């Protein structure tokens, strides 16, 4: 069985950044396993611009952002195997994958970095009545068809869900000559970034219908229309508000789900709020030597933060190999540590845990809030002691937040055995 220092599962933005930073920190043989025929992941089909403002201080398109990492990985001589699907990761860090050339292959790694990304929530998860006609696509599938394969998906479209991919596709379809009638969002706020609402919908006069959903899809062979209805505060359709929109295409942009089949089979602790594994401040799961980063851990809005998080996972994996080599470790040798409690207003935090041995550095905690808040603060407490309070004019579930804990603050929390993050008063919309 071939041995590697690090095997990275997934060659998207997270996998590429993790592999690079691992090499940077002295890791020897690294293998990236990618299911698609090329690396770069979802960035290949995200042809719009706005990527890399934080990482490269310029506005790049998705393929350009990916290319910078792909070139660096090539230069670093990191082995990349495309068309290779990982079917199992063992607790002993054996990785089993299949591809056309090698068939079924097993390799062993000193550390494994999970970077499998996420998938779109499908129609089946929505309970919309109707037949199963052609013309219903998840927004990402439509994005792939239009941008990579040059296929026109339809003449008149309605988009359900105002996630960023749905908004981006509203503009993209409009530019390609498809009429987008409306974007319907069941929540009272959009799940997408403000600038996407302005530049993808407002620019083209596409209405965003908040508190609306699709209650019926018409058509047997091809979509012939959808029935929209307003919903009440419990997200239940209000009788009498139905209206028919004639269209031949329905795009679904209704959320992304981290793709964690491998992680679950591995037996890692999962966080129900993120859909990803629980990690400590080193991006390490509860299974020794298994790290995770990017959208497999929690769904991000900006690729720049994926790259940062993945770089941390790569660095920590490289350091872990150096520390642990030759020593078979028992589960979580660094002890329990403490859990970051998601207090009032906080949906989740990543990392979920600070292990008992800090590394003397800052820890960036990323999190999402559970609703729209105005003129409020983000606060971090340990027992009664407030460690951080950050004023926020506006907080929204669609925009990931982050804060930094210094080594001193972490140590205090470890001593007191508690750390809690919450949103403090302000007007709730």
């Amino acid at each position: 069985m071939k041995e590697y220092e690090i095997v990275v599962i997934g060659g998207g933005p997270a996998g590429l950044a993790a592999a690079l930073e691992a090499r940077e920190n002295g890791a020897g043989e690294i293998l990236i396993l990618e299911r698609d025929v090329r690396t770069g992941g979802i960035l290949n089909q995200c042809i719009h611009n706005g990527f890399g403002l934080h990482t490269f201080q310029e506005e790049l398109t998705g393929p350009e952002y990916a290319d910078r990492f792909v070139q660096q990985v090539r230069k670093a001589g990191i082995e990349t195997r495309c068309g290779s699907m990982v079917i199992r990761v063992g607790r002993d860090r054996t990785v089993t994958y299949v591809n056309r050339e090698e068939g079924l292959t097993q390799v062993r790694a000193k550390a494994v970095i999970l970077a499998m990304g996420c998938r779109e929530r499908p129609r089946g998860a929505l309970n919309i009545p109707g037949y199963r006609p052609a013309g219903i696509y998840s927004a990402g599938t439509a994005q792939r068809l239009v941008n990579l394969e040059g296929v026109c998906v339809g003449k008149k479209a309605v988009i359900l869900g105002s996630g960023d991919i749905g908004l981006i596709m509203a503009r993209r379809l409009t530019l390609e000559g498809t009429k987008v009638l409306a974007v319907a969002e069941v929540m009272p706020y959009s799940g997408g970034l403000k600038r996407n609402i302005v530049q993808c919908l407002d620019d083209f006069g596409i209405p965003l219908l908040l508190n609306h959903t699709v209650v019926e899809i018409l058509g047997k062979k091809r979509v012939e229309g959808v029935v929209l209805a307003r919903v009440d505060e419990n997200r239940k359709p209000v009788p009498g508000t139905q209206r028919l929109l004639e269209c031949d295409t329905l795009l679904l942009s209704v959320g992304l789900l981290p793709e964690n089949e491998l992680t679950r089979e591995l037996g890692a602790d999962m966080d129900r709020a993120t859909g990803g594994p629980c990690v400590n401040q080193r991006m390490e799961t509860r299974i020794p030597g298994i790290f995770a980063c990017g959208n497999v851990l929690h769904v991000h809005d900006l690729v720049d933060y994926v790259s940062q998080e993945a770089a941390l996972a790569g660095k920590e994996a490289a350091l872990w190999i150096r520390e642990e080599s030759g020593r078979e470790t028992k589960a979580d040798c660094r002890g329990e540590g403490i859990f970051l409690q998601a207090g009032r207003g906080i949906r989740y935090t990543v990392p979920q845990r600070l292990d008992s041995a800090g590394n003397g550095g800052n820890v960036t905690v990323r999190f999402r809030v559970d609703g729209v808040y105005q003129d409020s603060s983000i606060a971090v407490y340990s027992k009664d002691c407030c460690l951080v309070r950050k004023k926020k004019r506006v907080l929204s579930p669609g925009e990931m937040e982050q804060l930094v804990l210094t080594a001193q603050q972490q140590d205090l929390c470890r001593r007191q055995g508690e750390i809690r993050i919450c949103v403090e008063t302000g007007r709730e919309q």
Partner: protein
Amino acid sequence: MIRELTCICCPLGCRLFVDDRHPEQVSGNSCPKGAQYAKNEVTDPRRTVTASVRVEGGELPMVSVKTSREIPKDRIFACMEKIRALRVFAPVKLGDVLLSDCAGTGVDIVATKTVERRMP
């Protein structure tokens, strides 16, 4: 005419009001960035346009492209018409100019990825 805009300078998303005959007079903004944004939006709104173009003989059927600079917003559809009519031949390298002076804007259409020739 008073125009109503949503500011995109930060997540706050202020609702801005600006008179397009007096673009200096902006209300609803909570910082100077908002005033500047509103002024630009009513005097000279510009956007980067991105799209995909068909490639003949390439390892991929399409190559992604963008305008080399922002173009006036009211020229978006004129540019798209030119971009949609474009056919290119592999190989295409990232950064290659595929069409210069698109629709009289003085802005080029450049490839945002590399598409090599298809192996026979």
